[in-house]
Each structure stands twice: as C-alpha cells, then as structure tokens.
C-alpha cells in the first residue's frame, strides 16, 4: 500500500517500499496552465533532493520540478512526450513524471501528508 507525501514545491511522491512515483500536484498544474512540454531525466541517472531535475513548460513559462528525495531514476513517463497535457488532465495519476529508487527513506520524514498540503494551498 503506497503512502503519498507532498512537498512545499507542489510535488507529490507516492512511496511503496523503496520505490516512489513523483509528479506535480493538481494545484501546481492549475497554476502553470496548459503544459506543452516536459523534459524528463534519463533512466539510470541519479538525482539529489532539491535538484531541478525535471522541466515542465506551459504556454507561458518554463518551471523547474525539484527532486523531493535522493534516488535513482528507474522510469520516466514516456506518454508525456506525445501528450504533455496529461499533466493538466490527471496530475496525480496518469500525468506522473518519474519513478525513483529511494536512497534514504528518512528524507520522507519532513514532507507533508495530503491534509497538511491542502491546508497549505488553502
């Protein structure tokens, strides 16, 4: 059973064992507007917490998505290449960005649960 955490930078991370799926929140996609391009890291690459490892571009601007934890990219959502608007339609499901293998599960401790995140964005 996966546990979903949220970051202050409007990412979600769904953790199951030592693997996690990462995306941006529905609130984030709504703020960004129509997404037209996503630049994902290579599978096999390592990311560190806070790295601007993913770029999400809306019609208006390019935005960084920060790695919520340290880890290795084990999958990237290739469907976004042809259909970046999946993030607008389904930010917290079909519009996921990458899958990670966690280096250090203790980094999850400072993250928010859904209730805390919802309280933050109001």
């Amino acid at each position: 059973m996966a546990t979903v955490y949220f970051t202050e930078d409007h990412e979600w991370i769904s953790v199951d064992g030592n693997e996690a799926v990462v995306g941006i929140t529905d609130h984030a996609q709504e703020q960004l507007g129509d997404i037209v391009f996503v630049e994902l890291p290579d599978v096999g690459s390592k990311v560190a917490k806070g790295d601007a490892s993913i770029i999400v571009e809306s019609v208006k601007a390019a935005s960084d998505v920060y790695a919520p934890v340290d880890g290795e990219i084990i999958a990237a959502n290739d469907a976004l290449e042809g259909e970046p608007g999946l993030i607008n339609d389904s930010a917290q499901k079909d519009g996921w960005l990458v899958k990670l293998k966690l280096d250090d599960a203790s980094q999850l401790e400072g993250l928010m649960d859904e209730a805390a995140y919802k309280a933050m964005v109001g």
Partner: protein
Amino acid sequence: MAKQLPLKELHVAANARFGPFAGYDMPITYPLGVMKEHLHTRSAAGLFDISHMSHIEVSGPQAAELISRACPYAASEQELNTGRYTYMLNDQAGMIDDLIVSRLGDKRFLVVANGACADKDLAHLTQLSSDFDTTVHHIPRVFLALQGPKAADVLAKFVADSSSLLFMHVMELDDGTFLSRSGYTGEDGFEIGISLDLAEAFAKGLIADPDVEWIGLGARDSLRIEAGLPLYGQDMDEDTDPLTAGLIWAVPKELRAGGSYVGSQALGEIIANGASHKRAGLKPDGRAPVRGGSLLYDGDGAEAVEIGVVTSGGFGPSCGHPVAIGRILKTAGTTGDHLFADVRGKRLACTIEKLPFVPRNYYRGG
C-alpha cells in the same frame, strides 16, 4: 505600486489571474487558460483589455508637421480616418517606441503608444512640440481589443457601421469613442478607445455575447508571435534600428536616405551601410519551447559560433508546435536553413521560417 486598470473589477469578477506588465497589474489568463483563450480568438472572438496602452492626441495647426518630425513618414499626406504603423526614433535611429498613428482630422492625430513607453513618448512628443504650433495631451480612456473571425458580427450589434470599416481604417462615434479596424493577433478585429464612464457598460455588453470570451496577455503574446508581430521591449528597443528589426517597410522609400524626422541621418547611414543583423522566424524542430533570451549558434558542437538571439518565443497553440522570432546575423542563413538555440545548456535545432507562422486574416474589403 502597480497601476490598476479602470475595469479591474470586471476582470476580478471573471476570475482573471493577474501579473505585472508595463507598470500595470494586468490579466494574464482567465479560467479558460492560455491555450483555449488563444484558440477561441482564432475561431470566434476574444476581448482584450489593453488599457495599459496610452492614447496621446496631437492637435493644432502644425499637428501633421509634428508627427512628421517625430515619425518617419509624411503625415500631411496621410489619408483621413486611417491608421498607420510607425515608430519614433532617437538620434541614433534606435526605436523609442512603435506606434499606430491615426489621422482623425485635418489637424488632429491620435498616437497609440505601448504602455511601458507611455511616459517617455509623451515627454518626447511634448518636447518636440515646442517647435510647432500644436498641443500634445494624454487621453485617459479604456482601450479594448475585440479580435477574431466573429469580431465584426459581434461589434455590428453595438456599432452599426463598424463592419464596413477596412483594415487600418478608423472612425469616431458621436460619443467620442474611437474605433479602429486593427489589432495584434493576426485576426480581423477592432480596437476600441472608450471613455471611462462608458467603458464598463460597453465591455459588459460585449462579454455577454456567447461568441466572446475575455483573453489575457498570455494568449495575446502567443497570438502575436504566431502572427509574426514584434513586441516593443522584446523584439526591439532603443538600441535596435528598424532595419535590423525587420520594420523598415514602415518608412516610405523616399525617406529612407534621409528626411527631416528625428533619427533620419543615422537611419540613412544604417541603410547605406546595411545592418549586420536581421529578423528571422524560427521553428524549433522539437517540442521544447525556445523562449526570448536564448542564444543562437550555427552548430551544436563545441566550436559553434554565436549568430544571434531569440527575441520572442513560446508555444504556438494554432501551429501546434513551438514558435520563435530571433535576431540573427545577416549571413546566418535563410528560409529552410538550420541553426541551434541554447536552452538550459542544450542546443536545440531550429529551422528558419518565413513570418508569419499563421496567415493573417485582415479585412480589406471585397
């Protein structure tokens, strides 16, 4: 402290998202979103509040002489009730601002200036006016643009004679409202300057029409880039001459070698010597948008040479791909040639394309 649009409450009620532009708190998008706002303007009618733009009236016995001193064209020969794209140059032939100047009377002209340039334009014209028998004054009003293939049908419900107006022709209504068949989207449409006390009811009437949606600055930008229209402050500025900016077409041939307008000598020299750079449409080959400020190179290797810069760029919703406008070395290539934009350290291939990216649908009669 940002200035507020006179109709701000209408935009708040329409759930606009605001952002700073030209010193104003401007509607950037509405709930429809940039993509749908853009496509709606191309298929129906979009309503833009562009009241950040400034209206300056030049009137008096020597009004035409002042305009012809400030701008490189013969204003005394301008047809009555027409608008003209022009600009004001400094002594180095750099662009102070680009403008639409409309002739409203024998001795009366309306200068529509960019919002961010409003104060310096007014100061410049006022300074020049000391040599002429004219008055120069700013007219506070709301400025709306109604753009798209259904704009004429919609506006005809409010202003009976409007649909017969031709592109770049203007009229004044009895109540002082200024109407111009023009815009900055590449579509047919109108720009409407209306007094502060009439504006709210007029805008409410337009937006109540089922074919009309509010459109923000986000879509205004993607619409004008697709239409190949330059934006002052992005594609040109006081350090850019009109030849380099690809805008020399706005100067009559007989005034290119020189004239009595400000900047004429410098412009004549630039034209005689040729500009080092030119404007180019750029179509990124991939899906990643290439935005203003990206440097352009002649290759993607380490030895590649810098050949220009992207001045405007983003995603083109009607094109379905990214679009950009750049300033490149004259020798850097022509239509169909490739160059490379630096985006976050990656060199992305772009093809030089003719502007505009979408056909312009102006109403010229017939």
